[in-house]
């Protein structure tokens, strides 16, 4: 049975490379045979907004969407998402608008390791 890694990221899509690092870590863990779950909390929820169009930086929304296609379960905190004016349907394909109590709890309780990426 593969080991499970949960990545909790809490910084946004543009001000830092943290979300990109989270995606790279997820892919590296997948390549090592881990099951990987990701949860966006606080400012981290901005990374799942679809339609991001950075001119000079990596598009973390696209990267994350591709990572989800590779099998990484991804959820975000709905309260944090709504607080920032986002609505359901604005997220990239495969990202779940969820909750700490249900989704993050499930991820953590099934995890062998938890990595927090934040500032």
């Amino acid at each position, binding site marked *: 049975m593969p080991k*499970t890694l*949960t990545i*909790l990221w*809490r910084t946004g899509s543009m001000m830092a490379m943290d979300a990109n690092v989270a995606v790279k870590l997820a892919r590296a863990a997948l390549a090592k045979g881990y099951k990987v779950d990701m949860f966006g*909390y*606080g400012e981290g929820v901005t990374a799942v907004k679809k339609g991001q169009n950075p001119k000079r930086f990596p598009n973390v929304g696209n990267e994350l969407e591709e990572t989800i296609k590779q099998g990484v379960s991804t959820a975000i905190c709905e309260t944090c998402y709504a607080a920032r004016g986002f609505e359901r349907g604005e997220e990239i394909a495969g990202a779940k608008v969820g*909750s*700490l*109590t249900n989704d*993050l*709890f499930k991820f*953590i*309780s*099934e*995890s*062998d*390791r*938890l990595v*927090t990426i*934040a500032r």
Partner: protein
Amino acid sequence: MANSTLVLITKAPYGLEEAFAGLRLGLAMGVNGMKTSVLMMDDGVYNAIASQKAEAVKMPSNMEATKELYDFEVPVYVVKEDLDSRGIDESKLFEGLKVVPASKVKELLAEHDVVTTF
């Protein structure tokens, strides 16, 4: 599989959402019956001061968010040395907190399956 979570609160309240977010994460774990502990350390010990007035900055109260943890038997520890170095007397803290020496941190880290830092 993780059966326990330790939440480290290292940031002061209100200027950042970090401390409040950590307390809510602790609550979410505690509500589900997971063994959960919260440890206030470094500037996180400012969250333990009883006279904090969240309403002055129109923010939710970190003190109330901490006390909600008690309903789910989530212990909240505060590192004594970090209080002392900031000149905060234990008499200034609100009720229910457990002031512990820094040497306890190692024990808490060892007692929990996963750790997350705010």
